[in-house]
């Protein structure tokens, strides 16, 4: 059964251990935070920073805190020393020491009051410990979370890989839309493969950049031509088809088309596509035909707006049109619209010929082979990149810009 005085001394010791521990831990945190934060930043920028290193850093900090606690407990004076200190501070004339020595309560009321006042009034000057600890944690967090894009720490290899990947993606998009003439597709595909190989071979970055610019320009021209053709086709098809549509779907489609460039519009577009697909399966023959045509228009718009997921949804609606429905686009018409023809009759014809079930399959197969080239080049390049660079490139493809630099 400890006396009040002994309990007071125990509390005093715990306070002291805490104060010492916090002080040492704050210094350790500051040093560790600066060191580990800088190391994390360097590893992320130039080397490998895998997740396990973050755990190692956290474990090191925890170890530092543990060592600080053990040091503080060891450094804290004994109870006897603290009793002497309490005696000194309370000027009790030996009463505290005597009571501690014999395990008694303080007989003198005045001494008891003075010792209580000493304990209550004890205030440790932290000396900026909290600020040091906070700064250390902030440094560590900054090192781990600092967006590399802000500090423009990007290697030439990563930049080239990004440009090649961007060109490949543009090519895959055009190829997926079946907008490229066969000869041009082959030429572009070959060119893309060469550039990917040059990028893999660490060729002259300046020459590679120039070649990439050239390829990018050619792809942009194709995309522009495809967009113009789609707009013309849609303008021609719109009036007679829209009349058969239910009012709800028409207004939904109009709103979606108006706002297609915005995020809300993209959602509306996807919603309209879904509704059109449902209608093409369950409505009257007239409505099914109009819905299929509308779905085609919306799908084109979705491709144009590059809405992730909307294209696939539209493709589902396009591949199951009721060919008997009045107003439904014929296979040839669908092919012409899909190919955004208008370049030449022969080209339109060649695309239309591909719109038989076999032709669609072949086209999908060719699109798949184009994607395969792109995927192959991308995967090969990605294998040579560091994890941070790999994440930068992958984030580019997924459109998640926040991931860049992680």
């Amino acid at each position, binding site marked *: 059964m400890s006396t009040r005085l002994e309990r007071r001394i125990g509390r005093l010791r715990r306070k*002291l251990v805490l*104060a*010492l521990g916090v*002080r040492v831990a704050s210094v350790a945190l500051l040093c560790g935070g600066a060191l580990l934060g800088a190391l994390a930043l360097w590893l992320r920028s130039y080397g490998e920073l895998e997740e396990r290193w973050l755990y190692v850093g956290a474990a090191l900090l925890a170890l530092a805190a543990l060592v600080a606690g053990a040091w503080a407990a060891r*450094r*804290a*004076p004994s109870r*006897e*020393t603290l*009793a*002497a*200190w309490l*005696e*000194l*501070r309370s*000027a*009790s*004339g*030996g*009463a505290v*020491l*005597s009571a501690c*020595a*014999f*395990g008694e309560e303080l*007989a003198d009321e005045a001494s008891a009051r003075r010792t209580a006042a000493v304990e209550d009034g*004890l*205030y*440790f*000057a932290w000396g900026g410990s909290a600020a040091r600890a906070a700064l250390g944690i902030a440094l560590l967090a900054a090192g781990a979370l600092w967006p590399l894009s802000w500090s423009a720490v990007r290697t030439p290899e990563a930049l080239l890989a990004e440009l090649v990947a961007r060109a490949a993606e543009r090519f895959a998009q055009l190829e997926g839309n079946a907008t490229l003439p066969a000869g041009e597709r082959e030429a572009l595909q070959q060119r893309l493969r060469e550039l990917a190989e040059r990028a893999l071979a660490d060729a002259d970055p300046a020459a590679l950049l120039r070649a990439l610019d050239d390829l990018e320009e050619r792809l942009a021209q194709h995309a522009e031509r495809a967009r113009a053709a789609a707009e013309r086709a849609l303008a021609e098809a719109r009036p007679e088809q829209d009349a058969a549509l239910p009012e709800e779907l028409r207004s939904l489609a109009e709103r979606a088309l108006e706002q297609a460039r915005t995020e809300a519009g993209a959602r509306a577009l996807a919603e309209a596509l879904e509704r059109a697909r449902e209608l093409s399966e369950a409505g009257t023959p007239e409505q099914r035909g109009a819905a299929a045509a509308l779905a085609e228009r919306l799908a084109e718009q979705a491709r144009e707006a590059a809405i992730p997921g909307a294209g696939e949804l539209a493709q589902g609606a396009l591949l199951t049109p009721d060919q008997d429905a009045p107003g439904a686009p014929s296979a040839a018409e669908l092919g012409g619209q899909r190919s955004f023809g208008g370049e030449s009759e022969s080209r339109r014809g060649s695309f239309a010929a591909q719109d038989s079930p076999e032709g669609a399959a072949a086209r999908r197969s060719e699109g798949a082979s184009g994607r395969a080239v792109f995927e192959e080049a991308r995967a090969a390049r990605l294998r040579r990149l560091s994890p941070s660079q790999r994440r930068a490139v992958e984030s580019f493809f997924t459109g998640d810009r926040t991931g860049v630099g992680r």
Partner: protein
Amino acid sequence: MSNVERLGPEALARARAPLQRIEAGLASALLDQGPLQRLLLAATLARGHVLLEGLPGLGKTELVKALAALLGLSFRRVQFTPDLLPSDLTGGPMLEERGGSRALRFLPGPLFAQVVLADEINRASPKTQSALLEAMQERSVTVLGETHALPAPFFVLATQNPIELEGTYPLPEAQLDRFLFRLIVERPATATLERILLERHRGERPPLERAVDEAQLEELFAAVDRVFLPPAVARWIARLVEASHPESPTAPELVKRYVRHGGSPRAAIGTAEAARAHALVGGRPHAGFEDVRAVLTPVLAHRLVLDYRARLDGVRAEAIARELLERVDEVEALPEELRRV
């Protein structure tokens, strides 16, 4: 904790009354010299000898006489002069004729009193001064191979004049070490002087009555022995004495510069005993840091052997003792956090 029987509240209360009477008596003998009186009483209770240092006419002799009167002890005064012989102090054999035969009979000297006032002790020759050594330490004198015990209790209260250097013999270190305290008697303040002029005819102090009987005095001595000295306080005393040596790593700068030899173990023992006695005078059954703080300077100052540079720079031993109190922490191994609080 300690196998020494502690001073209980009843014993403390019994000791308190005679102590207050003694204090009151001393206060009436020497006006407004509270700390000096308290220290003198503490030294007496610790059964130590006291060296009083001060200018002539400050009341040193009166103080000693008052103490002897209050304690009811026999009192002798010896005026030390250069031609004083040891036998003048100790006494000697006298040829005495008794019943037709002659025999040597020991005639006790002035040392055979319970309170001996050795006035101007530094005027006697070293030979005479050393005659006091055995008396002070052993509380006995040996004459012609025969040892004679001095009456108990036995106190030597010596005075010395600090300004008369001509014809004086500074006390050797061994002699000084026998004195528990060296007390500096300061000149009184103007108000005190005014009180003396108004209250004392021809400066004579009022008559004093005995404050304690022999049994009570013995009880007070026993009570001092039962005052508890906490280990932390004892450790501080040891560290203070250790730090008074210039070669000690804990010695303050002043000690390293001006002290040739620090305090002896006897100084540490004296400090502990004086702290106990001081605590009892303060009405406490245990000694604390304050008691050590109060007694260290009078215990240690006269035991420090100073360098010649101290005299050149006008540094006194009291200043060095005060420096020790300031520099040596009461509680060792305190972290900075507590040291700053």
